[in-house]
């Protein structure tokens, strides 16, 4: 594995925003926290999933909360360490590694700062391969892996350890604690062995993010079209290029529901597309047809610079390209779709996949 230097951190940060699928929060703050922790405690080892011993003891370390809170009440890595140590105490055994729960947004880089402080490595493996809104939408759930015991810690000195009946319950409990705390907490969850991690987790999400970021960076430096470069090198689908003609948002049940309307420009003139989101983008619709849906990654990127723009930051008039990137194959199994497919979010439609390669000339049209 390459050394986790500033260049790699920057690339991961940029790529993780793409994998955020419109949600996940801006990982810039996470990058700064990781950088500061490395400067203070020394370098962090990034290890490949295949290289960890079967008897390793691993947890996901992440922040739960609202992106708009996280940028004011900046989470303190020391509280992430506190969450980890509480869970260690509860389990009576130290963790040998930490892993990100999701590859998208702030949480992609959250474990790095805590790992630096603890002096343990980060496993380049996660439970989503992108960002999803619920805590139970992770690959361990597909294998009956348990999210709890789980610990939560905040900057005010509040500490929780919870055991829940199901992974879905742990989402509700973590959310309730977070609201009481003021909108953001660290949590450590899904304690697992190295052998379990190898069977359950998605491999190399950080390296995937880094490659996405590096592609965008190189294309900008060469004055090439960053979005075209991203699709050519990573096999996604270009769905539409256009202008944000309208954006509606509403809050229901504690989530961002909304719809962005995109009017095609250039070669896409005359087309109109809607992006439906619940924190993350879930469905891209043209007329009555879904052209791309969860669990594949849907992302909006600024047309010129390729800068990924999350749903929260979309504004009227932005010129964007909508891209589709493939998710982990496990999300397309029957169980995977039950957990993360359109019906889990209340859309009575089948999942529509992103074309797996730009070279086959197909954009993601409905099936």
């Amino acid at each position, binding site marked *: 594995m390459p050394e986790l230097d500033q260049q790699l951190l920057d690339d991961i940060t940029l790529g993780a925003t793409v994998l955020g699928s419109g949600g996940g929060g801006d990982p810039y703050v996470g990058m700064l926290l990781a950088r500061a922790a490395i400067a203070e405690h020394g370098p962090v080892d990034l290890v490949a999933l295949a290289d960890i011993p079967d008897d390793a003891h691993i947890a996901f370390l992440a922040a739960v909360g609202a992106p*708009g809170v996280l940028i004011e009440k900046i989470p303190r890595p020391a509280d992430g360490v506190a969450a980890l140590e509480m869970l260690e105490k509860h389990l009576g055994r130290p963790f040998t590694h930490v892993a990100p729960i999701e590859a998208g947004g702030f949480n992609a880089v959250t474990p790095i700062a805590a790992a630096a402080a603890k002096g343990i490595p980060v496993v380049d493996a996660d439970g989503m391969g992108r960002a999803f809104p619920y805590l139970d939408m992770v690959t361990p759930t597909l294998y009956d892996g348990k999210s709890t015991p789980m610990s939560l810690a905040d900057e005010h000195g509040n500490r929780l350890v919870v055991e829940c009946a199901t992974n879905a319950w742990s989402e509700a409990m973590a*959310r309730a604690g977070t609201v009481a705390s003021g909108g953001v907490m660290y949590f450590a969850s899904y304690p697992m062995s190295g052998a379990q991690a190898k069977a359950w987790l998605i491999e190399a999400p950080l390296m995937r993010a880094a490659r996405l970021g590096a592609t965008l960076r190189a294309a900008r430096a060469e004055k090439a079209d960053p979005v075209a470069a991203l699709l050519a090198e990573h096999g996604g689908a270009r769905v539409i290029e256009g202008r944000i003609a309208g954006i509606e948002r509403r*809050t229901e049940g504690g989530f961002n529901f909304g719809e962005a309307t995109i009017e095609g420009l250039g070669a896409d003139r005359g087309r109109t597309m809607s992006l439906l989101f619940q924190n993350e983008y879930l469905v891209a619709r043209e007329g009555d047809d879904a052209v791309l849906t969860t669990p594949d990654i849907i992302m909006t990127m600024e047309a010129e610079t390729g*800068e990924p723009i999350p749903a929260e930051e979309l504004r009227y008039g932005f010129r964007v390209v909508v891209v589709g990137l493939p998710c982990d194959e496990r999300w397309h199994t029957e169980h995977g779709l039950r957990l993360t497919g359109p019906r889990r979010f209340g859309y009575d439609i089948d999942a529509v996949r992103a074309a797996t390669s730009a070279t086959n000339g197909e954009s993601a049209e409905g099936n």
Partner: protein
Amino acid sequence: MPLRIGVDVGGTNTDAAVLDGSTVIASCKRPTSADVLTGVAEALRDVTAGVDRSDVHSVVIGTTHFINAVTQGRFLAPVLAVRIASTPVPLPPFTDWPDRLVNAARGAVIEVEGGHQFDGTPYIETDLEGLREALSSGEAAHLRDVVITSAFSPVNADGERAAQAVVEEALPGARVTLSHELGRVGLLERENAALLNGALRPLAQKAIDGFLAAVADVGIEAPIFLSQNDGTVMTLDTALRFPILTIASGPTNSMRGAAVESGLSDCVVIDVGGTTTDIGLLREGYPRESSLAVQLGGVRTNFRMPDVVSLGIGGGSRVVEGAGGVTVGPESVGYEITTRARVFGGDVLTLTDVAVAAGRLTIGDPTRVADLDPELVRRALEYVDDAVAQCVDRVKLDRGEIPVVVVGGGAALVGSNIPGSSTVQRPSEAGCANAIGAALANISGEVDRIFSLAGSSRAEAMAAARQEAIDQAVRAGAVPESVRVVDGEDIPLAHLPGGTALRIRVRVLGDIDLTKETADA
């Protein structure tokens, strides 16, 4: 006959224009003086030579003074940064700043226990006793430019205000910037803007004293405004406290001036200066703003800035014939063009010389460039036209054709055959577009923060935000009836059950109330 004067103080030239309504009745261009103020006084004297100075109702000044200070790290004051949050804070003030600016602007840092939740509830009492103690230490005690930033201060500023009172008592004469006054949620970006602002305040005091003296010296008694980033204006009182808000006024003024002169509200504007050419898109009369985080001198802020592409090509750019062919810029003779360019008797081959040789421009002594190789001239201009064409293509939102307006002192240097343009206009007062833009600016108000929905509906929260923005604009000197909403949106905060909070952004614009002497007093 109520007249407005616009002044643009650039790095090379100080331009001034007198307007009656939107009609330009006089304009002039003078070299920027080393002290800035002599140049302003000269330009004002010149441009008002033929008018009754008592008819002047307002003077609007745009300046690159502050952006230059930030990009060069010069003339900045050392700042005492006070952060109110849960301590120890994870990312202290000046995080991710370039060393050059840290050295220039970092005086001392004090961390104070305190802060608020997103709904404005305090999560702990602000530790004012701890602050008082820290202020008495040697490092902080001699600083006078102070910036106070508290978590969620855009929602509840009590912590920042309480700390301000303590600071003002402990450090007599302190100039205090409170981060919530600069607006937005996003602590690091808001604090960065506040820190830059704090570092600029002594310079602002000096510059504004100079502007006042220059205007008084010429015998103009009208109120003076400073032009700000979004093409609107602020009073000097506001500018003294918030110089950071004027920092990107240059390109904005050029583009607004181009709109007025061409009569177009949707076009590409090319502003050709002495060293650089700025190219941007004008939509509905205002510059299109960048959708990315804006870096000021390498510091990340959450300001909105015009989305302008800058080319290192201007009238003073050196023309060089090398192995790779003929290139123009980015090296420039800058303000020395009047002595160093060939047509002015110098020995440096500049873009201006080449343009004179090609007949695009009549200036200086054309016989001094008569011997230039026509092939060199053709290739130099081709280089410029290609570079400009590429930038025009980049800023356009559409592949269709769009009108192009060329302004700036070097407007004649750019060819008329621009791919992707439907028409190419060069207004008669093109050289003073920036001064004209400054003169005709508006006044804005903006709200961007989180509103709790406990006990109120979304519509009520939106209405409250709108009213707050309108009140802000009126307080800043806008005619109440003219204020209109130009941008508005609400973002429910993700992950919080019950729909308890909304982040609302509203921006309004209005006409300057010329009947008020000091609108912000």
